[in-house]
């Protein structure tokens, strides 16, 4: 019966049906097949990072002099290296280091960069100029060169690698944050918060920061990819994770001399880097599309069409 049917034309300014932001994002990601694949790879990475040593069939430094340079087989799916160590186990365990370096270094960049960008964008004027020019100086260095310089000063190792990569990516977060803050702080609701006598800190935390979450989420996802890549590069140069601790970059370096005879030594760690970086990129791009405010209107148009 038409009586029971809700009639959109006569509904007037009815409140928009409740679709939670999280639900909308998830639905849009599910429609995006590559993003789904990316999420799957990232899930595998997280599992490997968390449980790697338990899942690995061999110890990472279990040397087996009788089985050097073995090709992929049932026993050694990724083959063995120049010391007879199982490449599969090493790739699996190295996932934790890559993930750790990625998360910690991006965490540092996020914390410092967002704080700087927030303060610069909110107060503008002199504060903004001083902070952002400092960021420009950092930004002007080639990424890897700066990281190498920092490692050279602080000494090589896991922690240094994390700090170095964190410092390198800080200006990017500062810039993204500042740009978003500049537009959000002109919104009437920020003026409204000022007029209610809210403190600057409260306004930044409660009103500005939540409204710039979307670009920051996207930037975080993309930066994780580059941070993992940077870690691999540093380790490849011998400035990151120190042997015998396995890392993808270092394994790639070790396999470099045997490309002709034992291609599996370099291929699998390289593939791991490639897949993880690709996955973070795809997911980051998908998030950017989904979280873009213009996408909202497209979604709404589709719903009402």
């Amino acid at each position, binding site marked *: 019966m038409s009586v029971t049917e809700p009639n959109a034309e006569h509904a007037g*300014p*009815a*409140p*928009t049906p*409740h679709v939670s*932001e999280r639900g909308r994002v998830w639905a849009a990601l599910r429609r995006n097949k590559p993003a789904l694949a990316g999420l799957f790879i990232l899930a595998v990475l997280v599992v490997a990072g968390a449980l790697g040593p338990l899942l690995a069939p061999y110890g990472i430094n279990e040397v087996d002099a009788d089985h050097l340079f073995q090709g992929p087989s049932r026993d050694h799916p990724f083959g063995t290296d120049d010391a007879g160590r199982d490449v599969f186990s090493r790739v699996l365990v190295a996932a934790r280091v890559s993930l750790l370096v990625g998360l910690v270094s991006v965490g540092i960049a996020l914390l410092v960069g967002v704080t700087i960008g927030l303060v610069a964008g909110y107060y503008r004027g002199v504060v903004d100029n001083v902070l952002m020019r400092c960021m420009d100086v950092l930004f002007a260095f080639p990424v890897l060169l700066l990281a190498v310089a920092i490692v050279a000063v602080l000494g090589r190792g896991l922690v240094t690698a994390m700090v170095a990569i964190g410092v390198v990516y800080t200006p990017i977060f500062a810039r993204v944050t500042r740009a978003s803050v500049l537009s959000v702080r002109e*919104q*009437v*609701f920020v*003026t*409204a*918060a*000022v*007029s*209610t*006598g*809210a*403190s600057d800190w*409260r306004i930044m935390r*409660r*009103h500005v920061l*939540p*409204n710039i*979450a979307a670009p920051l989420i996207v930037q975080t996802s993309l930066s994780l990819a580059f941070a993992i890549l940077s870690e691999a590069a540093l380790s490849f140069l011998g400035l990151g994770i120190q042997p015998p601790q396995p890392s993808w970059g270092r394994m790639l370096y070790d396999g470099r001399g045997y490309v002709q005879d034992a291609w599996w030594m370099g291929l699998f760690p390289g593939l791991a880097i490639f897949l993880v970086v690709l996955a973070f990129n795809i997911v980051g791009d998908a998030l950017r599309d989904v979280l873009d405010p213009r996408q909202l209107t497209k979604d709404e148009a589709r719903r009402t069409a």
Partner: protein
Amino acid sequence: MSEPVLALEGLTVTFGSARGTARVVDGVDWAVHPGQTLAVVGESGSGKSMTVLSATGLAPRGAKVTGTVRLLGEELTAMSDADRRRARGRHIGFVYQDPMTSLNPVMTVGRQVSEACEEHLGMSKQEGRKRAVELLGLVGIPSPEERVDNYPHQFSGGMRQRVVIAMALANEPEVLIADEATTALDVTTQAQILELVAGLQERLGTAVVWITHDLGVVAGIADRVVVMYGGRIIEQGKVDDLFADPAHPYTQALLAARPQPGVRADRLLTIAGTPPLPTELPPGCAFWPRCPVRGDARCEHEEPPLVEVAPGHEVRSFYRADPAVTEERSA
């Protein structure tokens, strides 16, 4: 009469720019008393919003504010920034023009309403939430217990403006400042909001400063009216006096420009020209270039003083200030 809640004396706002000093607000005096509604009217750029923003310490960067502002007898202009911020949050509520942008889209309306209570009254989250439910009910939002956890996009424009009013009333302010608060709403909603504010004012005894360019709104709610032009007050008085007997040519022209219900007019009356730029104010009366009367030789070169033409009714015009002309017209 009781002490005014908010009183401005000689408030002047200037901006220094490359093209000289811009005098955006010039020597504005007015006061609003408890339970009263003061309407500040004027065209865009007449300085009406700037007056209120500067008076409460919300002037944009680079503005130079002089004059005295008293809030509940205390001199707001002499306070430190932090004290002024507290006084503002505690005693003044603001309602803005566009309810679509004056709410934070990622915060529940309940949190936004209770925020001021938590900041200034030291309420806990639970108390704040209870207060938010109470306030949302007060401003006529149905089933406030459920709506308190909704986000702004789940409300219609009129309902959002009610939320904004609830936010403004959170600390039971003595003054409510509504800056074009009904301009962005359709006429029916506008009437509802006006009725709501009038009702709340009666119950809470709040003073209201209503900044608007809509004379219909003024006639409906105001006790007193201040008409601004070129950053100055050009006429002020009780709403009935001003509507019955507008003294300034500008006010007369404004009232004449209103469409009359039931009267068919093919062309609406307008006032020729545009308001002067604050950097290029004419030497005499600011309205002189557009004035249809120009009733006195001094108009062009001399700034007319604000003089009383009837008890409580002041006007800044040579033409009307001249008693002979006044008598002649009223005879």
